[in-house]
């Protein structure tokens, strides 16, 4: 576990940690020696014959002061280590995350990353003061006491040495029992959390169909399942948890009985016996502290492992010999793709893209259509190298995207996603991120092309309107226009629109369609859309289904093919004529 901690902290955080552990080790040994010194001291006090008390008392004072100094250093280092560790950890975390493949950052990651940077870092920053320090103490102090016993009474030392493996075995066994039960409970807890969320989110339907909490069996089953799991842990775990305390008490009882009988047969002197029992009392006390650390250790280990998993996630290697793209054409050559195994469960199953090949010549427009889950967005993301392909190559300007430096690739490709991200700031800030140095003219031109100028005119603060966190102050359509405007301002040679106009009303949609067509004159365009007007403007239409390209050609060619594409448009035509009519 300490090795894990070093891995997570890196060289910057490891030095102070080692110093802290060394200081604490010193304090623990001195504590053991101080306890041991009580034996000759008490013996001297109990038995006038054994000689002078003073040297022992002096030794105890020196040893205790040494302990106090080291312990004070250890304590304060432990406390201050926390904030230093959090800083080191946060920096490593943020720095590493910045280099991760963009595909890593899915919506599901937000909560996970929040927990990593919050709770998990706190667990780890607490470790030195609240886990490692006590752990070092509760191991080294007993060891010191046992060693000291060799000088005080070999038999006691021998008994302790023989008992140690038994105690250790009991500890290992009880920890494993509790851990196993704890793990078994995780499933029940997750199920219950899931069902609670489902219950709350589906309230309209559940209520309407009379499924209140009592009536919704799945929720109650999950709650009962969770309670049963907890109860099982209590019932089965209690023996495990009690066993160590029992063993420790048995050791104490054994030594009590032995020392009493040794005293009775005269082989142990009456003054030493009580003093030794004081020492044994201290020993069992220290050992019990170690057992109590188990739960905290388990939690901290979980946090450490999660942090390690992130820090071990490999960023894309930077190309050793980066090459600039030799143009703005895009080519997918037998591309297949599957999410990496580390992606959260439920995000993707099976192959997402299989054997996808196509070429978009410079200054031309390609439309990509297909049902949900066909892989359209995956194509867009691979082009921007959110992930690397599992097989095949994505070329931009004739160069493998893996050989283009990330900055150059980012400058070449501009993407507008359906799910718009706006950061806190004004509309102007958000558009200008496309090109901070853009002239007023360029800004207004981009806004006009995206239909953002109309939005800005209707807002009382105009360009200075604050968009709110995530752009919540704007409507979906307004947010999309901001996103389109900034992509246009960026003026990259390759433009990808992923259902970028889905939230727009019909009027602005129509206006934007002409913008898109105008752009095709000097940009390489990949447009994912359900709109026929846009599709008609494309030189090439790709129809995707189940991660493959099933049909390709121009609109007319595809209509003539009478395949999926033609069926789809026929249905859309019928759908358009739909009306709700009173039954008469």
């Amino acid at each position, binding site marked *: 576990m300490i090795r894990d901690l070093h891995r997570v902290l890196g060289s910057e955080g490891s030095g102070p940690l080692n110093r802290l552990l060394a200081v604490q080790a010193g304090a623990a040994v001195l504590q053991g020696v101080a306890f041991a010194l009580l034996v000759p001291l008490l013996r001297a*006090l109990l*038995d006038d014959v054994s000689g002078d008390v003073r040297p022992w008392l002096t030794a105890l*004072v020196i040893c*205790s002061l040494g302990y106090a100094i080291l312990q004070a250093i250890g304590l*304060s280092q432990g406390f201050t280590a926390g*904030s*230093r560790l959090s800083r080191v950890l*946060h920096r490593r975390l943020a720095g590493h*995350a*910045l280099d991760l493949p963009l595909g890593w950052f899915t919506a599901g990651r*937000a*909560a996970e990353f929040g927990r*990593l*940077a*919050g709770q998990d870092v706190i*667990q780890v920053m607490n470790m030195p*003061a609240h886990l490692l320090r006590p752990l070092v103490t509760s191991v080294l102090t007993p060891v010191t006491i046992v060693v000291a016993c060799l000088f005080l009474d070999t038999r006691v030392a021998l008994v302790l040495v023989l008992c140690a493996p038994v105690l250790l075995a009991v500890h290992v066994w009880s920890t494993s029992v509790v851990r196993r039960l704890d793990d078994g409970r995780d499933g029940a807890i997750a199920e*219950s959390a899931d069902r609670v969320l*489902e219950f*709350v*989110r*589906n*309230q*309209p339907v559940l209520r*309407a*169909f009379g499924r*209140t*909490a009592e009536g919704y069996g799945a929720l109650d089953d999950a*709650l009962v399942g*969770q309670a049963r799991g907890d*109860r099982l842990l209590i019932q089965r775990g209690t023996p495990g*948890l009690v066993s160590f305390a029992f063993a420790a*008490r048995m050791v104490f*009882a054994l030594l009590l009985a032995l020392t009493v009988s040794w005293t009775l047969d005269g082989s142990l002197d*009456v003054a030493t*016996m*009580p003093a030794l029992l004081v020492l044994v*009392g201290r020993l069992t*006390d220290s050992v019990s502290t170690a057992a109590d650390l188990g739960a905290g250790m388990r939690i901290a280990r979980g946090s450490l492992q999660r942090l390690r998993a992130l820090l071990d996630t490999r960023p894309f290697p930077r190309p050793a010999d980066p090459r600039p793209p030799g143009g703005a054409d895009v080519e997918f050559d037998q591309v297949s793709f599957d999410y990496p195994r580390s992606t959260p469960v439920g995000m993707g199953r099976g192959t997402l893209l299989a054997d996808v090949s196509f070429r978009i010549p410079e200054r031309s427009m390609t439309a990509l259509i297909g049902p*949900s*889950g*066909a892989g359209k*967005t995956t194509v867009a993301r691979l082009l921007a190298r959110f992930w690397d392909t599992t097989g095949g190559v994505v070329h931009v300007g004739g160069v493998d995207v893996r050989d283009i430096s990330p900055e150059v690739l980012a*400058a070449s490709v501009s993407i507008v996603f*359906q799910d*718009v991200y706006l*950061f806190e700031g004004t509309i102007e800030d958000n558009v200008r*991120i496309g090109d901070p140095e853009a002239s007023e003219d360029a800004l207004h031109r981009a806004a006009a092309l995206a239909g953002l100028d109309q939005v800005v005119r209707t807002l009382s603060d105009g360009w200075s309107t604050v968009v709110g966190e995530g752009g919540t102050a704007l409507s*979906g359509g307004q947010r999309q226009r901001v996103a389109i405007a900034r992509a246009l301002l960026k003026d990259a040679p390759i433009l990808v629109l992923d*259902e970028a106009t889905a939230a727009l009303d*019909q009027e602005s949609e129509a206006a934007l369609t002409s913008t898109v067509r105008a752009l095709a004159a000097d940009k390489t365009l990949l447009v*994912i859309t*359900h709109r*026929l*007007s846009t599709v008609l403007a494309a030189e090439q239409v790709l129809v995707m289904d189940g991660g493959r390209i099933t049909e390709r050609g121009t609109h007319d060619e595809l209509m003539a093919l009478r395949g999926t594409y033609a069926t789809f448009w026929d*249905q*859309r*035509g019928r759908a358009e004529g739909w009306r*709700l009519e*009173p039954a008469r």
Partner: protein
Amino acid sequence: MMRNSSHPSHPVAQPPPAPDSPDTPPPPLRGILRQVRGRLTTAVVLQAAAALAGVTPFVAVARIAAHLTGGSRPQAGDLWPLVTVACVSGLAALALGSAAGFVSHIADNDLQLTLRRRLADHAGRLPLGWISAGGASQIKRAVQDDVRALHTLVAHTLLDVTALFVAPAAALVYLFTVDWRLALLSIVPLAAGAYLFGRAMSGAAAQMAEYGATLGRISSTAVEFVTGIAVLKTFGRGRRVHDRLLAATDGFSDFFTRWVRTTLVTSTGALLVVSPVLVLLLLAAAGTALVAGGWTTGADLIPFMLLGPAVAAPMSVVGTRVQQIRAGQAAAARISALLGMPALPQTEAPLTPQGFRVSVRGVSFSYDGHTDVLSGVDLDLEPGTITALVGPSGSGKSTLASLLLRFQDVTAGAVTIGGIDVRDMSSACLYQNVGFVLQDVRLLRASVADNIRLGRPTATDEEIERAARAAQIHDRIAALPDGYATEVGTGVTFSGGEAQRVSIARALLADAPVLVLDEATAHADPYSEALIQAALSTLAAGRTVLVIAHRLPTIRHADQIVVLDGGRVAERGGHRELLAAGGRYATLWKAQSTGRDETREEAAVPAPAVLGRSDDPTIREREPRDDS
């Protein structure tokens, strides 16, 4: 037992896992614990007995030492009974303590289940308006996290605190019988520790508030990092989110450093003065002096060496315990706040509607009590007719429809069905009469059949299949590996349009005479739009329908078109009538048909507005919510 952290702890330098709000009102913990009070009392008594029994072995050992050093030769008959007492009381302490823990854990186990059930049950009665406006996460937090936070308090802290008081007190009582001077002295570390801890803890409430705030900033910037990095990086501005995250985390560690620095000396001092080594040093040194002076004997020192450290030891964990109590109180406060939230009232004497005529009279509604989302709306739905609600987004269409479903109650006025106020009907009766198909469909993680059966629990498999056929979804279900038994979410993930059709099948099965419909449902999925429309048409046939309309051509033939604007009825009438009137409807119609004509010119087949869905499961939808 499960989350015990009884290791020594700095009162402040160990942040609790979750920040608790310091300004919560006096905790209603007592009320929540009432149910298990008897068992908790038992557990506390057992624990107190355990603490007393735990002190006994040391007393026995001290008596043995007294016998040994009493001058005469030690007698086996004197010693062995004491050895037995020590061993038996030690085991008794363990048994009693374990029993106390067992009782408190079982009590907590029952309490958790009861609380979770009560919370879930109550959540099922709260106004839906509140739930969708962020209440959902509060409920989830209370049911899971807050109930779990109570566990530490109920199962562990209560007993720990009992032991912390009883054991030192019992030890002190015994020590005073041995030597009052040394006994007084052994209180000194305890008192000094208490004083220093008090100093270290002062102002902790304000610090905790700032701790919570700085931590909150970390989690919000972390979320921002994840959601924003893709966009910002493609614009070459990835550093922006990185720097913002670092600003938040640096703020946290700066604050923490300051906090630790102000309390560092006092808390380190406090932990040192109560440490066993220094307590023993104090007692040994004083004892040596007393023995030298003839005030006491060496044998009398033994009890102090054995029990002295235990007197002061509780101080070293007092900080952790105080934090656990605070966290438990805050959790209890949140739980009872939720339980105390007024539920949608249920009538005592439910009435049954006569007929299906729906009428809305003088209805006003406000979410916040200040701004009316609806004001003075009058509306009649004649049986078997279609009424369309039309208006810009935010005009109150969805809110009005939700009042009919009693997702919330009117602020003023009344909604009646068959002459009976919806508030005077039992929910079972209400939903037998009113069905709905709304835009935002979430299916339950249950078999497809059970999802449909929700509409009528007694439905046979044949009836379910018939409903699925009518809803145009049977073929899709039949093609699944386990057919109708396939579990939604794990065995199959339906597209938006498919989920819509499952919900239509459900509504068909429920067969309510009045139907609330969101027309936008039809274009949840452009690839199955025609199928959904067919299903909706089947469903609407012969019912009293209230439809929230987005595309006017769809509802051109409705019996009645009601135009809402700013929460008021602006116009009402038939399509021709309203067009002729040249008012708001005419304007809306013109605007929409212009857009349509434009597309019609360039395309043989017009493309309707599409509520796009992401085809990538990694992108979560963030559709603006209409009206609410």
